């Protein structure tokens, strides 16, 4: 586990080794720590805008002694898995734009308003809590449901933002987005998270609509 202080020191060390100014988006546990939802995290999940920035970041991380590891161990055979680097208990999961079955969209980037700059070269933008839920749905590891529960219980959720983004994902070509989100929220309801029935109803309607359109096109 890595605490806030350790994470800051680590990111400062990485920033000092970067050869160019880059902007990255924090999702997952890292973002949750900056937003005050969590005190420690297992991994640092970052989304890059392009492959070039990730390559620069990778070099910095490698120079700190981190070793590449196989994403299959954590993410199985899912698509768009991150490049992973590990040293002792700390791990970096580095994505480029796509996070499994979701795209870190333009709207998500705009909503990432909180900025943390490390030295001169590392600009870390923190994903909005609503988008964190969607990203948790994308990665859907064992701990992700618990994290999503923490977010929903600790902040006022505007469900319209989540539904609109799920629709947006569909238009961006991620057809599974609404389906995955509905399944994820259903699972959360089963463990006692308060998700309004009206929201589930709207999501089911969207799935039905999507299925009808699919059938029409066949």
């Amino acid at each position: 586990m890595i605490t806030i202080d350790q994470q800051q020191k680590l990111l400062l060390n990485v920033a000092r080794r970067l050869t160019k100014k880059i902007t990255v988006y924090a999702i997952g546990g890292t973002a949750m720590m900056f937003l005050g939802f969590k005190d420690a995290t297992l991994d640092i999940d970052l989304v890059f805008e392009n492959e070039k920035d990730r390559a620069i970041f990778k070099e910095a991380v490698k120079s700190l002694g981190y070793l590449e590891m196989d994403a299959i161990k954590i993410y199985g055979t899912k698509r768009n898995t991150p490049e992973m680097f590990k040293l002792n208990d700390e791990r970096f999961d580095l994505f480029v734009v796509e996070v499994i079955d979701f795209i870190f969209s333009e709207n998500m980037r705009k909503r990432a308003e909180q900025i943390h700059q490390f030295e001169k070269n590392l600009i870390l933008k923190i994903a909005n809590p609503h988008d964190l839920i969607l990203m948790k749905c994308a990665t859907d590891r064992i701990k992700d449901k618990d994290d999503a529960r923490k977010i929903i219980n600790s902040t006022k959720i505007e469900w319209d933002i989540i539904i609109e983004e799920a629709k947006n994902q569909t238009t961006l070509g991620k057809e599974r987005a609404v389906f995955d989100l509905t399944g994820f929220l259903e699972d959360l309801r089963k463990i006692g998270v308060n998700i309004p029935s009206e929201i589930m109803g709207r999501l089911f309607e969207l799935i039905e609509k999507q299925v009808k359109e699919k059938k029409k096109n066949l």
Partner: protein
Amino acid sequence: MKKRELLQKLAGIQTIESVMDILKVDKRMAIYYLYVLRKDGYVKTRRQSNNRRVYNISLDNKLGGKSYYDIINRYSPIKISTPVIHKIYGKEPSLEETLIYAIKTKSLRTILASLALFKKINNWVELYHLSKENHIERQVGALYDLARSIIKVRKMTTKFRSSALSKEKYKFEYVIPELKSRDFTKIERVWKIHLPFNKKDLEEYR
């Protein structure tokens, strides 16, 4: 009570009485809860003129770092309170960087408050470099002339002025889109920049 829950309930400016009131506990327990949060770096304490303690409780205190707004508030008589979070770690942002950031926000009050930075700015090479990078050399020049008309400022180098000064081919630009000045048209003409302030806006500097 969990630390996170405690932080959520007490976030903001508190006194010992308000902590007792919010948590519905006696003074001894309120002091203990403040101790728990302070140990983790969430609490900053200051004293009022009557020696009473006031507690600033926030996640930001733990995160540390410096924000551009902290710097503006340190030097300007006009204070800014903003929900915008832009923290910098591992280095102290320079006054020159802070001024450029303020202009780029295109926020009237932030730019107004940042005029006070001209009192302290002396690295004109860095300022020119940063403003050129952001294509706002003329905006910086015009705001400098404006600041000079209301407060005592450091002298701008002739190199900055001659390099940044408006050329024939330049068109008028804005500091804040659509905002023009009625009272500082002379400065506007020199730099071909529309200033967003009138004399009345600058009263807080007098």
